[in-house]
């Protein structure tokens, strides 16, 4: 779904670029909390991983194949803000080093795959985890491995067609050629529903594999690994600590490492019990999802003939040229489709705004200092106190 140069006009490209820059700025701030100190290394390697994971292709329909977008996977593994940052980095490198995705469309691509894809995946994944967590608490156990996998898969499935729908919305605003919005949306969302299934399967499998080996590395499970941190002791020596195998390592004097290791375990346990988003936020998130999903399905079911049209036109149905010759394609811009398209666009805009709002809220919450009673002996380097 890497949009090249020339699909959208200059004003739209500049506007999406500005929006993407704002989102990226927020993500840089937010990811500092998710990654901890010196997070550039971890974010860079996660970006490498997402880049590599995008090489995993899977068959979609006859002859076509999709590849992983990775937004939902990044949300599950490293958290929403870092996911936006990482996806943006992947897109920047793809555009500038691999000529994949236009330079003028870089903002558009970041907005679609980095912000909308990641935002929707965050809402759905965290919403599902919060609901499951609530049920689990009633039954006396936290969200299990299956719950986390299901939540990440749900996020992956919804995020792909939503990003496709967002592309259609942008195309309706600044597209270069007049294509009926209804037909375009059907074709894009239809194909991307299938890609979404593949995305969900792969995301679930990858999250499951990581959970089996290093559950502390799956942020969606609420047990994020303690990032490498450095602490300057009173006598001037620097103590380093990493999460590798829960062990601590030091340079120079290393007294107190054992204590900080125990503290990390307590930290991990405490975070596992802490819900990631508030209950109210989760309900709103799920409601927004239902609205988006409901809008999409309504759209698809009211015009099955339109879907067949597009399937024929795009050649998925295996019918090559012959139906095209006789079909009155000029009748394509059905008034009803346009109206539904507009409704969809409206619903989508609302959900998107809500999503961004929730993202900001959750970011602010996470940044809020914890209660005085909480055990938090995570060492912090002096630089942070600037």
């Amino acid at each position, binding site marked *: 779904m890497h949009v090249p140069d020339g699909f959208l006009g200059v004003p739209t490209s500049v506007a999406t670029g500005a929006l993407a820059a704002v989102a990226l700025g927020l993500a840089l701030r937010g990811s500092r909390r998710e990654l901890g100190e010196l997070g550039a290394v971890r974010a860079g*390697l996660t*970006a490498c991983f997402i880049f590599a994971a995008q090489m995993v292709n899977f068959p979609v329909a006859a002859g076509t194949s999709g590849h992983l977008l990775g937004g939902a996977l990044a949300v599950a593994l490293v958290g929403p803000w870092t996911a936006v940052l990482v996806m943006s980095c992947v897109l920047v*490198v793809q555009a500038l080093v691999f000529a994949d995705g236009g330079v003028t469309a870089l903002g558009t691509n970041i907005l679609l795959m980095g912000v909308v894809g990641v935002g929707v995946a965050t809402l759905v994944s965290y919403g599902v985890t919060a609901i499951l967590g609530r049920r689990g608490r009633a039954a006396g156990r936290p969200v299990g491995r299956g719950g986390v996998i299901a939540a990440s898969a749900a996020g992956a499935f919804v995020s792909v067609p939503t990003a496709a729908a967002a592309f259609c919305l942008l195309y309706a605003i600044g597209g270069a050629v007049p294509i009926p919005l209804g037909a375009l949306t059907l074709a894009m969302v239809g194909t991307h529903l299938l890609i979404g299934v593949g995305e969900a399967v792969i995301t679930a499998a990858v999250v499951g*594999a990581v959970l089996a080996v290093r559950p502390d590395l799956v942020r969606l499970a609420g047990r994020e690994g303690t990032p490498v941190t450095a602490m300057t002791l009173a006598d001037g020596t620097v103590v*380093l600590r*990493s999460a590798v195998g829960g062990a601590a390592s030091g340079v120079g004097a290393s007294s107190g490492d054992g204590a900080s290791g125990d503290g990390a375990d307590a930290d991990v346990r405490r975070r596992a019990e802490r819900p990631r988003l508030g209950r109210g936020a989760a309900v709103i998130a799920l409601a927004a999802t239902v609205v988006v999903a409901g809008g999409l399905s309504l759209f698809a079911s009211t015009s099955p003939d339109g879907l067949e049209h597009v399937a024929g036109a795009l050649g998925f149905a295996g019918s090559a*040229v012959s139906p095209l010759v006789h079909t009155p*394609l000029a009748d394509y811009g059905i008034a009803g489709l346009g109206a539904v398209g507009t409704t969809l666009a409206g619903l989508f805009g609302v959900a998107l705004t809500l999503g961004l709002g929730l993202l900001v809220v959750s970011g602010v919450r996470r940044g809020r200092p914890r209660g005085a009673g909480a055990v938090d002996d995570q060492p912090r380097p002096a630089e942070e106190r600037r």
Partner: protein
Amino acid sequence: MTTAVVLPTSPPVLLAGHTPGIARPWERPSLVRSLPPETKLVALVGFALVVVAAPAAAWPVLLLAVAGLVAVAVIARVPYGWALRRAGVELPFLVFALLMPIVATGERVQVGPLSLSAAGLVGGALVLARATLGVGAALVLAASTPPHEIIEGLGRLRLPRALVDVLTHMIRFLDIVADDLRRQGIAQAARGDHRSRMVRLAATAASAGHLFVRCVERGERLQLAMLSRGYRGALPPSGRPAATAGEWGRALALPVVVGAVLLAVLVAGSVGPLGAGGPR
């Protein structure tokens, strides 16, 4: 690293998308190669903007842009085979552009047995031309600039420091991580990767999960190593001097010339009223 990934079974599941190749076209010295990266980045964005801004009625400007880009590619000594392979990323949207005459609305034209939209024909050709020019210009940059210099150029263009650091680490490890994935693919194939497609997909996804764990652990080792060597959150800036006016002039020659011609054509009004219902 080889470009072609040898997997004993088919169809390949891994590495069908991006493959960072062994080809290092930027090792060929050229006039474009020696320009500072920030000037080339600005030139690329300027060129792409001019191309996207050119309306269909100003098609001669696009021809001029093609001629200019080919000239620059020759000066930059871009390897043609490499460029053609890399240009393959454009293919999915090529299909989209080819479909435009069929699905677009408006006046119809009879071409052979097909009834096509006139606006779609013009628009499809225009989109194709713009996208190809954009890919071509990006390939000239990629062919004449090592990836780490591109990132350095972004830093000189005042991209936030934190972002540049992330990109630097990403570029630094991209080959290693992609190679890890490739080796996992070979190992998977060597261990009897001949079962059903779903089983293979599951195994691939599991490999990807392990790849993530490896990435994080590599990052942790790297952080510890960097910390113990005095890194405290920022990479040192490179000592290269800022670009001179002459270098900026050489880099920006193509976009400025094409942009000026486009502006002249538009101002002269020889292309008629713009954006009046036609493709923008």
